[in-house]
């Protein structure tokens, strides 16, 4: 089963996980890492490494979902990138998470990560554009 680490500025990741569980119930193999103003780069690195170790106990790898490309959570996560073992996805949103938990048992790391990227993008809509159709 693919594992998930959500690394974000502040408690966004923990809250996203809580929101996801509100919708689909308890989830497995997921950890949130909160990066705060007073976290040093070493603190951040250690916390992400520990979280990967917790969710990636089988050989199916893990995805680190981060909030924003270019932010510290993503910057540090990138250093864990390892093809077929750890993938990093930025711009995490709730639809992406729900898709992850509905697919983590059926799909491999690479395929799942690719699907999540496009699914996350497709889930963004502007309501007024529907009116113009």
């Amino acid at each position, binding site marked *: 089963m693919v594992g998930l680490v959500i690394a974000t*500025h502040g408690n966004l990741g923990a809250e996203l996980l809580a929101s996801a569980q509100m919708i689909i119930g308890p989830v497995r193999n997921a950890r949130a890492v909160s990066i705060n*103003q*007073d*976290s*040093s*780069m*070493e*603190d951040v690195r250690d916390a992400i490494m520990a979280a990967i170790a917790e969710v990636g106990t089988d050989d199916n790898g893990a995805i680190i979902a981060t909030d*924003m*490309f*270019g*932010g*510290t959570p*993503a*910057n540090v996560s*990138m250093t864990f990138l390892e093809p077929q073992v750890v993938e990093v996805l930025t711009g995490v949103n709730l639809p992406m998470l729900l898709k992850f938990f509905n697919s983590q048992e059926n799909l491999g790391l690479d395929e799942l990560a690719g699907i999540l990227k496009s699914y996350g993008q497709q889930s963004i809509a502007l309501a007024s554009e529907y009116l113009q159709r």
Partner: protein
Amino acid sequence: MSIVLARIDSRLVHGQVLEAWVPFVNADCIVVANDEVAGTSFQCMVMQAAIPSSIKLIIGTLEETASILRSADLLKKRVLLLFTSSEDALKVCQLGVSYPKLNLGNMHSSAGKDRYTCTIALDQHDIDMLKQVEGQGVTIVSQCVPADREQNWHKLIRSGGR
């Protein structure tokens, strides 16, 4: 060229810099002066990708970036200059780059350092380095993000670390 912000930030290019400081000082060029990062192509690539295309990014060793900053290459640029340590800030200063003010952004705690604010921890070595920077006519302040009040570092030091 004008250096609109010179900052020590162990996180280098990250959210606070891109989303708060760049628009606040209206920078159109970011210079990362760091020997280690300059030699890590993956990290350079990620930083380049994170920066809007309207902003020029230069990543180089202390020597390389100092030489570019001394030249006429960035004559019309509004430069945001980033270091990771007090030592690097001093070296670039000693290499002939003058910046009027040095911002202490993120200098996080590690073993042997005293914490002065939530984001600034210094040891005696840092204080010595910064005093030398100050000796070059640089005003040293702490301000993590533009919304924080700028504070002279002497005030910080006087209040003592924990």
